[in-house]
């Protein structure tokens, strides 16, 4: 009889984050697995229902476009968390810090002297053909020479148990608000299991983010005016923009609220104009300033780049960081780590074939049915071919696309993403997950202990994007030192 316990749970030959192949819980997951199994089935269902209602009440929803009656859906949340053990987190944390340092060096380098190209590490044409390379940013010197203040790096675990970097997101990574809301919901649903599991807190993220932004204050101005710039309520991440502004206690502005005068940025207030010092912008480079980038943008602020270039306003992230999100550039990150830091990468990349290279292209075209093919500049799970799940026609279509524009495509082996038990009807089934930790680069580099665990809710699916039927889970990073140490870290910033 199916029910919510792990007795009949089948890991299905995949790496399961909570359960060993022999059916026993992994170290660190014992308390959770044991207590959940003891709960009456009805109880678990009630809690899942209560969570769904709470999310709707809090308005943590997506608007379904084109529906007249204003239907909104919650971002599905599954109540079984993913657990990350302390030792493993240390490895992840160190690896992410290393990677972000190298990427920041890279961005600064390519907009200045381009040593990495001159020394032949990255071919010039690879850079020049990156759509997100911004000539407007050449020679820019952001405060403290930090470009990528906020990053959300996508990690995956393959069948072998190893953690790999799947993608770097250095533009406007979203999702951190779900990390915080998921946590608050979980604490209410399972207070005892949570307390006994000794989970590291995530609640200080908004304070850390604020400090990171304040660190950018132009001309070292104390107590700067900081704002969050959003494209508006029609953006799918609008909830997050307002949530972060609210949690930091700073204004949420739209392009129309700002104007540039004498190379300074002001916001239109009821009492007049107020100068803005730091902008956490959640608008892509393209739309940010119609004077400097796309002239047809209605969302941006004309003259913003002028003010930025003069150093009268700081932007996070700096314009131009998107170049590192190019999936071809991604393939060179391990080389960057060696080149700039003279270190070995702690977290490896997924093996990547660059279609621009003739040998790679030949291999990719011959193995389309096994590989995952990605367009270099797409995000959100679009522009992608998952070989083993594709038809012959789809493969032919991608073969043609690759041959027409090889620079725009890379391919990777299809990974066997790890799974986590997930509520499916009246029992648990394994579903594939990834993990997006968030990294802040201010006075030092800080990694939020946790992150967004995205889960592909469709059986067998490997696509975790929310736009493609994905949901999320809370991520529990376990404390190893005494909890007091972590707590005192939090107290320092709150």
């Amino acid at each position, binding site marked *: 009889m199916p029910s919510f316990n792990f007795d009949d749970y089948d890991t299905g030959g995949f790496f399961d984050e909570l359960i060993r192949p022999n059916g026993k819980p992994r170290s660190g997951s014992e308390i959770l697995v044991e207590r959940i199994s003891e709960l009456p089935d009805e109880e678990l269902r009630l809690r899942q229902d209560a969570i769904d209602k709470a999310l*709707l*009440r*809090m*308005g943590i929803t997506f608007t379904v476009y084109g529906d*007249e*009656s*204003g239907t909104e859906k919650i971002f599905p949340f599954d109540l079984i968390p993913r657990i990350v053990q302390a030792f493993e987190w240390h490895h992840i944390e160190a690896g992410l810090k290393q990677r972000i340092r190298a990427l920041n060096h890279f961005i600064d380098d390519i907009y200045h002297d381009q040593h990495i190209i001159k020394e032949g590490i990255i071919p010039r044409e690879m850079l020049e053909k990156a759509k997100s390379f911004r000539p407007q940013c050449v020679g820019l010197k952001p405060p403290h020479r930090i470009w990528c203040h906020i990053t959300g790096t996508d990690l995956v675990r393959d069948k072998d148990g190893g953690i790999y970097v799947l993608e770097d*997101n250095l*533009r*406007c*990574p*979203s999702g951190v608000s779900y990390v915080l809301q998921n946590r608050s919901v979980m604490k209410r649903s399972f207070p005892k299991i949570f307390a006994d599991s000794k989970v590291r807190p995530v609640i200080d993220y908004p304070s850390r983010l604020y400090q990171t932004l304040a660190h950018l204050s132009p001309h070292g101005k104390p107590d700067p005016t900081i704002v*969050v710039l959003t*494209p*508006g*309520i*029609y*953006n*799918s*991440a*609008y*909830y997050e923009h*307002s*949530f972060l*502004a*609210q949690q930091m206690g*700073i*204004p*949420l*502005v*739209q*392009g*129309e*609220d700002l*104007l540039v*005068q004498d190379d300074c940025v*002001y*916001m*239109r*207030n*009821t*009492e*007049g*104009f107020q100068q803005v010092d730091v902008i956490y912008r*959640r*608008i*892509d480079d*393209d*739309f940010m300033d119609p004077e400097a980038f796309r002239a047809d*943008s*209605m*969302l941006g602020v004309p003259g913003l780049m002028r003010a930025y270039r003069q150093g009268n306003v700081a932007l996070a992230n700096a314009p131009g960081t*998107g170049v590192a*999100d190019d999936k071809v550039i991604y393939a060179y990150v391990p080389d960057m780590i060696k080149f700039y830091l003279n270190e070995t990468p702690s977290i490896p990349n997924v093996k990547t074939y660059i279609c621009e290279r003739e040998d790679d292209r030949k291999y990719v075209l011959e193995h389309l049915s096994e590989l995952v093919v990605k367009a270099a500049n797409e*995000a*959100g799970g679009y522009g992608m071919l998952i070989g083993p799940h594709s038809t012959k026609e789809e493969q032919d279509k991608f073969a043609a696309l690759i041959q027409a524009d090889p620079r725009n495509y890379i391919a990777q082996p299809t990974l066997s993403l790890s799974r986590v038990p997930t509520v499916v009807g009246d029992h648990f089934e394994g579903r594939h997950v990834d993990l997006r930790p968030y990294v802040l680069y201010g006075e030092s580099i800080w990694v939020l202990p946790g992150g967004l665990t995205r889960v592909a809710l469709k059986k067998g699916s490997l696509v975790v994007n929310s736009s493609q039927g994905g949901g999320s889970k809370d991520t529990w990073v376990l404390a190893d030192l005494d909890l007091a140490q972590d707590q005192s870290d939090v107290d320092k910033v709150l």
Partner: protein
Amino acid sequence: MLSRVANSIYWMSRYVERAENIARFIDVTLQVILDQPADTGEQWEPLVRTTGDEEFFLKHYGKFNAANVLQFLSFDRSYTNSILTCLQNARENARTVREAISSESWEQLNAYYHFVKEASTSSNASADPEFYDRVRQHSQLFSGILDATMTRGTGWHFANIGSLIERADKTSRILDVKYFTLLRNVHDIDTTFDDLLWSAVLRSVSGFEMFRKRHHALTVHRVVDFLILDAKFPRTLLYCLEQMLHSLNRIASAVPSEQNKAIIGTKDLIRLLRSLDANTIIDGGMHEFIDSFQSQLNDIGQSINETFFKARSFSSSKVAFGTESGSPETGSMQTQSQSASPSSISIES
């Protein structure tokens, strides 16, 4: 505070107050009908007239009967001032300023919206007095939470002004229409029926009990005096204006207060009310009085818009005023002017 944010808070609060008042109008009408021997249908037409949107109603519904009027005022998505549309507008405004209001008040408004939206899909909610009671409670809960969780800063003052200006408008509307209905029946005076109608008017603004405490016996003059000129009951015209002035004086503006048209207009209207008594108002014609009151109130609304919300250019801090309104019949309600809202959607990674 950002002008756009102030504008949204002001309208959020106006729309919540409007939804509540429409529910109050309907509720009291349902009550009155229950106390009448036969439903003559007479009660429904004046209800539509309070909105000033008879034309829209006639075009879309034709007949003044319970089902039509209730659907129109409660759940008609195409009508700008139905309860459902008001809630949708209130919530959209709140959504754009979530960071500027307390989470609790947002959650309440969100729950309120979902409640009304849910009800709109059920077949008989619009005829259920319980529904209008719940709408009123939801609104009151929202204002209570807002009051209990927000700093008395610019944001709160705009919310306060929004609900007060709306409330003054609605109290004047109900008085206008009910007075007209009552006078029509002036020859077949039936004291019981008269009492019933006037007490219904008072009840619709939750004023019956407070009126009784002050006046005991019901007369037209006393009701008029109470609803317009009482300085202590929180839904009267005078009270709303005086509280508005209080909030207006606490909002910093680029314009000095002696040049602030919103403040000047409010002060003028208060001075006018203070110079009147019930006799003068009734002798001079109730409808004419209300009409001029609403027109001046609209001017104040317009001035608030010009003074605080209008995007000014950097160089000229001069503000241009355009004030014209005042129609012979009950005018339509003011609605939020749509600023150019971002229509395209940018892509985020």
